[in-house]
């Protein structure tokens, strides 16, 4: 068994003990059970509900629902996968209730087919650590993720932001592993194409020796 598997197993045992305690009346332990997953629940809600305030509300509702339904958690799935599925349901219900027609201008990218040409450049190889401190970079990332087609965004948020495995992502979303892989690939490449020229511009002032290669198909 790898160290990581052993750690996962220890965590699952710890969670199982907490759940038993909560169900036997030690309700306060729910704070401890949920704490490691706050970020994951919020990001999952945000993958469907693009408004931050509303995503926070959906995240709270999902966590309350998980508390109320805790007795139905069977332990055959991971607690995190169960929690993400509840959050996605809560978010979908919210979208339906709002009867909101979200016009997604990028929906035409939603097909699994299609051609893709990446942004070509040769000077963005390192992630400068100071870049992360800069608000502009974060805003560009937020915007690019928000603009992905819904089905791509859900996959890339679970897989690359929350770092679930491909199998866990498929399980949480109720789609096949091969569909997760296709959507993940296209989402990553759309982000690459969208972000790389922008990030490059952000850094232009700092780095003068960059070279943008123009390719014949551009």
């Amino acid at each position, binding site marked *: 068994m790898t160290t990581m598997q052993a750690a996962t197993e220890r965590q699952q045992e710890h969670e199982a003990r907490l759940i038993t305690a909560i169900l036997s009346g030690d309700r306060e332990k729910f704070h401890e059970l949920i704490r490691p997953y*706050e970020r994951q629940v919020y990001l999952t809600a*945000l993958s469907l509900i693009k408004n931050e305030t509303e995503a926070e509300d959906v995240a709270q509702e999902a966590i309350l629902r998980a508390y*109320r339904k805790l007795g139905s958690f069977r332990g055959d799935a991971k607690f995190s996968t169960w929690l993400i599925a509840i959050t996605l349901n809560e978010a979908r219900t919210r979208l339906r209730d709002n009867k909101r027609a979200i016009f997604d201008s990028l929906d035409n990218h939603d097909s699994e087919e299609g051609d893709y040409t990446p*942004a070509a450049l040769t000077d963005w190889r390192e992630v400068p650590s100071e870049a992360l401190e800069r608000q502009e970079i974060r805003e560009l990332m937020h915007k690019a993720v928000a603009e992905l087609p819904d089905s791509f965004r859900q996959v890339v948020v679970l897989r690359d932001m929350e*770092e679930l495995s491909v199998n866990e992502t498929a399980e949480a979303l109720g789609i096949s592993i091969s569909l997760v892989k296709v959507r993940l*690939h296209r989402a990553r490449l759309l982000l690459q194409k969208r972000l790389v020229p922008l990030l490059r511009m952000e850094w232009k002032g700092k780095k003068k020796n960059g070279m943008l290669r123009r390719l014949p198909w551009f």
Partner: protein
Amino acid sequence: MVLNCRHVWDRISDYIDGTLDPAMLADVEKHLAHCEICSAVLDSTRNIIILMADDRVFELPIDFSKRLHARLDLVLATESPESV
């Protein structure tokens, strides 16, 4: 098999996730070794994945946790989980 750039782009995600079969992996690596464009696409895609996973890029709203646990306190004080 000799791959062109588009073949390599189609496999970038699997390459990064380490899920290419050994023969394809060797072909992709052979192409990357001499193609500056594809290796730049690979590096930048990988960098975006690193940024996506970085907690500083997608932060929780300020006091998210405080508000959540305050709301939880109200519910935990008055409700038990539903009996199954």
